[in-house]
Structures are given as C-alpha cells and as structure tokens.
C-alpha cells in the first residue's frame, strides 16, 4: 500500500465515523458538531484528489456557512438542545428501503462507471480554468442555479416574515 492509500483509508474511516455520529448521536448539537468533522473529512478527500479549490470551497461554504447557520437555528429553537432527540421514528422501514436502493444504485454506478472514466486531467482542476469554464461553457447551468438559489432565499425570507406577523 502506498502512503496515499493509507492516508485515504484513514480519512475515509474518519469521515464515515463522523457521519455515523451525525445520525446516531442523541444530542442534536453533537450531531451538528460531528457534521463539521464529516465535511472536513470530505474536504480532505478532495485534497487527495488534487481538487484543492473544491476542498477550500467545501470548508468555506459547508463548515463556515451552513453548519454555523444550523447551529444558530438549533440554539434559537427553545430547549431543543437540552433534550435528547429520537433517532428512530415509525418510518424507519420505509427509509431503510430508500437508503438501500440509493446505496445499490451508487455501488453499480461506481463499479460500472469508474472503469470507463480515464484518469482526470489535473490542469482542468486549476482554479483559473474552473472559473473560465463556469463563465463560458457552463454559464447557462451556472446562472440557472444562481437564480434558483436566489428564489429559494427570497422564499425563505418571505416565510420567516409571515410567521413574525402572526405573532
């Protein structure tokens, strides 16, 4: 085993363990903190794949933005952090089926698809070429996603506003 492989397995084990903790921890704040470590593990995997830009953005957006807002919401919700949360509910059977189906699809895709994909071109991962691609070849999907996110944000603000008026 090469050094890279050892590092990969260490990081993968760390990420998976943290992900399990997200799902299984009784205290919802512990879940959120474990989620931070999961995101960090994923970022480390990106670094191993030479996708440094993606790794930095992963940490910036998921750790710096999303998890912090998540923790913010948990702390503003009264007493949710003091009580333990229920890990299982009555829909456990249904979700197990869905999860297994997704797992099967992804396994098949990995086994069949990876063989056809050649080794990636490291130059295409460079930040400059990524930016160029986003503003030329992929400008339409890029803008569509931006508008979608903007619409979601406006929607969230309107929902939050309406709730306050009721009070």
């Amino acid at each position, binding site marked *: 085993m090469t050094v890279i492989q050892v590092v990969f397995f260490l990081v993968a084990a760390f990420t998976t363990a943290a992900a399990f903790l997200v799902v299984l921890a009784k205290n919802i704040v512990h879940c959120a903190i474990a989620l931070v470590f999961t995101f960090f593990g994923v970022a480390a995997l990106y670094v191993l794949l030479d996708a440094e830009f993606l790794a930095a953005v992963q940490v910036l957006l998921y*750790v*710096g933005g999303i998890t912090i807002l998540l923790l913010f919401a948990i*702390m503003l919700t009264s007493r949710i952090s003091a009580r333990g949360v229920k890990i299982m509910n009555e829909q456990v059977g249904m979700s197990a089926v869905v999860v297994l189906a997704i797992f099967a699809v992804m396994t098949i895709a990995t086994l069949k698809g990876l063989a056809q994909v050649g080794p990636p071109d490291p130059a295409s991962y460079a930040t400059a070429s990524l930016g160029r691609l986003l503003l030329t070849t992929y400008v339409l999907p890029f803008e569509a996603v931006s508008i979608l996110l903007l619409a979601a944000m406006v929607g969230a603000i309107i929902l939050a506003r309406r709730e306050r008026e009721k009070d």
Partner: protein
Amino acid sequence: MEKALERFYAAFAALGIPWIVPQLILMLVVASLVILFISVSVMFMIWWERKISAHIQVRYGPMRVGGWHGWAQSIADGIKLLIKEDVIPAGADKLVFALAPMVVFAAALAAYVIIPFGPNLIVRDLNIGVLFYISISSLTVVGIIMAGWSSNNKYSVLGALRSAAQAVSYEVPLVVSILGVIMTVGSLSMIQIVEAQQRIWFVIPQFAGFLIYLTAALAECNRLPFDIPEAESELVAGFHVEYSGMRFAIFFLAEYANMFTVAAIATTLFLGGWHGPLLPPWLWFLIKTYFIIFVMMWVRWTLARLRVDQLMNLGWKVLLPLAFLNMGITGLVLVLLG
C-alpha cells in the same frame, strides 16, 4: 536551503527509509517552529497592547516584572495560567467543552501555513493561497459556538450566537474585498501576489478594498468596535465566561494569533509583503504586519462598541455594497486596460 533539504532527504533514502519518514520529521520541526513563533509573538503583542492601552489612557501599564518597562509581564501571566486548576463546570458538556479550545487553536495555527514571511520563508505556497485562509478561519466560529453552548451558561450562549451572526455577515465583505487584488494578479498564491507588487503596492489602486478588508478583519477577530461576542459590560466575557486556566489561555492565544494572521494577510495583499529597501525581507514583513496590528490596537482603544443592529447594518448595507462596487470597478478597469 533547498540543497540542505535535498541532502536531508537523500540521507534517509540512502538508509532505505521511505520518504514519508523525513517528510514527517520535517513537518514536525516546521510545526514546532510555527508554534514557538506564535507563542513569542502573542506574548509580545499582549504586553504591547497593555502598554498602548495604558498610554492612550494616560497610565504606565505594566512596569515592574522583568525590570525594563515590565517586559516579562506576559511570561509571568502565562506561567500563572499554566499552573492554575483546570475547572470544568458541573453542568457543562465535558467533551465539547474540552474540544472547543482545541478547534479554535487548530484553526488559528493552520492559517500560518500560507503566511509568506519572505521569498523562501513560507510553510507551503498553496495554489489556493488566500482561499485556504478564508476557509480555515471559518472553523474558529465553530469552536466559539462549541465553547459557548457547552458551557451551559446563558451569557456564553448569547456570546456564541452573536459571534456566529457576526462571522457569517462579515465573512462576505471580507472575501469580496480581497477579490480586487486577486483579479489584478490573476492568482490566489500568496507568493505570486507579493511578487506582483514589485512596482506598486496594491494599497494604492485598491485603497477601498484595503479599508473594507481592515474593517471586516477587525470583526473577524472579534475586536472592538466589533467585539459584541464578548462585550464585557453586557455578557461578562461572552463565549469564554466559564473557561479558566490553561483552556482560557488557549482561547487568548488563538485570538492574538488570529490578529497576527489577519494583519499578515493585509500586508501580503495590500502592503507589498516583504518588499522594501535596505532591510532584509522578513524584517520588512514583520514591520508592516506589526504596524497593522498597532493600528488595530489603536482603533480598539479609541472607538466605542457598536450595537448589534448597527453592526449588522454596517456589514450588509455599507461594507458589502462598497466591496461589490470595488470589485466591479476593478473588473471594468482590467477589461479597459486589456
């Protein structure tokens, strides 16, 4: 320097030891050096800040320990904190409580990887340079929230919440203010950004960006006038109310280490990094960095604290539009100049 490194690697290769062993040894040595530098620099900065604050308030500040102007005061304080009892509140979440200072310090330490002290004095010239700092610094807030929540104290939770709101709001103008420089250079690498300033420091064409960066950086460091996460008169001490002894010292260390990082990044991006006549590059870099730190201290002891709503208004309604305007104008000028 590079030859010595090659010989170091070759010596291990000759013995049949895989390259990972000298690599690990090297990483350990560099990390120890960085921690040593942080400790010395932070102790100096604390003494300096006490002196500056004292003189602004027409006092002397520490005068006794060590003889000359109380220079050993920080060392004495550090030793005192080290030998204090380690207290964990009964109602605290023990694991998270212990983990929080480590997370904050790890984030502060990691940022030193990309600080270019001189042409060859950088731990690693990453491709993503500045972006690495921006992303790793967001971990600090996670640590602060962990500290505030796990202490099980309403003042700490309030401090943590304020810190989260502040960090999320001020990170956006901080990033956008840097973009002007990055667009001009066309690279995120710290070394290349410094080299691009051989003829003119970016503080001149990017003056607006510099001011926005400095303001947002003060907020990122939780320093006055943006220190609402630890506002003493409202929250006792904010997120670290329940911390004492060594754990408190780590928070303190990380805070001053972050201040140095922020100032060093300002030096690299706007003040020409190590460029300067006569003196050696590393000295120029330190002089500029400590000058910015001095400005930050000066601001702290001169201005009053902003209210929470004023803070949010300044971040979203003033700094962010200005930063976007700066970015747009920079882009326009770059296109017009070809």
